[in-house]
């Protein structure tokens, strides 16, 4: 009996449950020489806003113990730029492309969501309401329940594509946001985004990041992410995509057991560009070793 790694997230069929996370895999071509994109579960591209965004001044990342703080500031070529220069490359591959979108206002969220309605080669949208690197707007959307509902409903109204809502890492209210996303029509939720964080150069007495603070990702945050995914998965019926510090198959399986249907690998790709593919293989080995036929037999399998 073969082992079936395929999963479906709100209508997006993926050959395995291991995606690459937004912002850590560019728009595809950057890693295409190093890994076979067709072996990924899905590619989530770097966040796209209606207009091009320059992002934050350097330094934009700082390494910490087991983690990375980033304050890229959502630099991106904008909707048009991506449709023109980014998407065509990805159409050449046989891998679901999920476009991560964001805006500074509800209208901007609507605009960018609507902008992908006609676009060929887009399997779904992931709405980022949680980036800790936008000062004026976006951070708010993920931190205020009413605004959160407004933006998710607005985007839902503008797109018929599978809609994934990426939650803010709000420790105390994750179940509430998960249910709100489900209630507003999301097809899936993903979490966590990086966690607000900071580092200081004690010699210059200045922040190490151009933007003063940023978001922490990487193995350091895995136990926090796992807890939030477990809570979110128990709160909703729609599929959950687990993200946060996943670096090996065992990490990914923890998220599946906690209730995730799929996972996304972010920071780990920087050390090992093949991380996502090796993790998918490792999940297959685990299924075989445990006599399980399908990855869904793992999802939510935590015993208590």
């Amino acid at each position, binding site marked *: 009996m073969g082992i079936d790694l395929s999963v479906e997230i709100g209508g997006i069929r993926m050959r395995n449950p291991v995606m690459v996370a937004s912002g850590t895999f*560019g728009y595809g071509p*950057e890693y295409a020489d190093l890994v076979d994109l067709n072996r990924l579960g899905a590619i989530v591209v770097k966040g796209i806003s209606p207009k091009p965004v320059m*992002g934050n001044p*350097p*330094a934009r990342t700082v390494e910490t113990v087991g983690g990375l703080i980033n304050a890229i500031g959502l630099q991106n070529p904008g909707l048009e730029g991506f449709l023109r220069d980014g998407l065509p490359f990805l159409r050449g591959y046989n891998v679901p492309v999920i476009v991560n979108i964001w805006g500074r206002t509800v209208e901007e969220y609507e605009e960018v969501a609507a902008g992908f309605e006609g676009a060929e080669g887009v399997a779904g949208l992931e709405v980022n309401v949680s980036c800790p690197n936008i000062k004026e707007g976006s951070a708010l959307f993920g931190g205020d329940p009413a605004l959160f509902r407004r933006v998710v409903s607005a985007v839902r109204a503008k797109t018929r594509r599978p809609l994934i809502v990426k939650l803010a890492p709000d420790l105390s209210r994750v179940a509430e946001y998960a249910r709100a996303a489900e209630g507003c029509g999301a097809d899936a939720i993903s979490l966590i985004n990086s966690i607000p964080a900071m580092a200081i150069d004690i010699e210059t007495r200045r922040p190490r990041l151009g933007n003063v603070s940023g978001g922490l990702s990487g193995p350091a945050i895995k136990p926090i992410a796992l807890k939030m995914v477990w809570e979110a998965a128990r709160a909703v019926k729609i599929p959950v995509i687990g993200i946060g510090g996943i670096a090996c198959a065992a990490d990914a399986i923890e998220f599946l057991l906690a209730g995730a249907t799929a996972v996304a690998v972010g*920071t*780990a790709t*920087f050390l090992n*560009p093949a991380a996502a593919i090796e993790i998918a293989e490792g999940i297959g080995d685990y299924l075989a070793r445990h006599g399980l036929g399908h990855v869904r037999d793992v999802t939510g399998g935590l015993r208590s």
Partner: protein
Amino acid sequence: MRMENAQILEHRDIQGGYKRLVLRAPGIAPEVRPGQFVHLRVPHLEAAVLRRPFSVFDARDGALSILYKDAGHGTAVLKGAAPGETVSLIGPLGRGFPAECGGRMPVLVAGGYGMAALHLLARALPRRGIAFFGGKTADDVLCVDEFEALGWPVRIATEDGSLGERGLVTAPLDEWMKKPPREGVELFACGPMGMLRAIGERAIAGGWKAWLSLDRHMGCGVGACLTCVQKIHAPDGGWTWQRVCREGPVFESREIVWEDE
């Protein structure tokens, strides 16, 4: 560009905290062009989430070497890696230097380990010119013999005067540039930002080209994470970010928007 598990063939001290690491990398080594770099995963650096970029000092016979300084925690751990161990490399990365000088006389300028980025260039350029090496102390002036063996005279300046002239490397360069050769000069430089800026300004003032290799913190090394950006003049009079790992690390001085760091 590819990823390769490279075996350590040799790992030895050069001088004052600098080491040379020679790696068997039959996939990457033959592809390296002058000024390109590799993104190296430091073995046993457990708490790290990033690789470290290093200029390829030399590449031949399926092996490549890097020169590095014990400058932080990553390199401190790298120092412990032993011959026979395996090191994961991604490379060759970046666009590197143009290996020609349009008939002008090539002038190499290096600060500290910056000379590592210039060594392959010194071999590849169609003609020999002159090299200027600077460093804090004599310990920071590396591989002069190897450049001289390739036919490049080397002028040296150290901040403490322990080797060559006392002062910055720009001093002997300025002195020499007072009488530039008739065919003009083309500058190639790698070193700290302050040095690069000084050279870029001289090049613009003198009407020469200066190809500057920038040293920026890097994340992915391949263009995906947007960590390593540099402000570059845009054709429309504004500016855009370019990725030092992908569009760089070498830029011509006129491209760069200099800012106070």
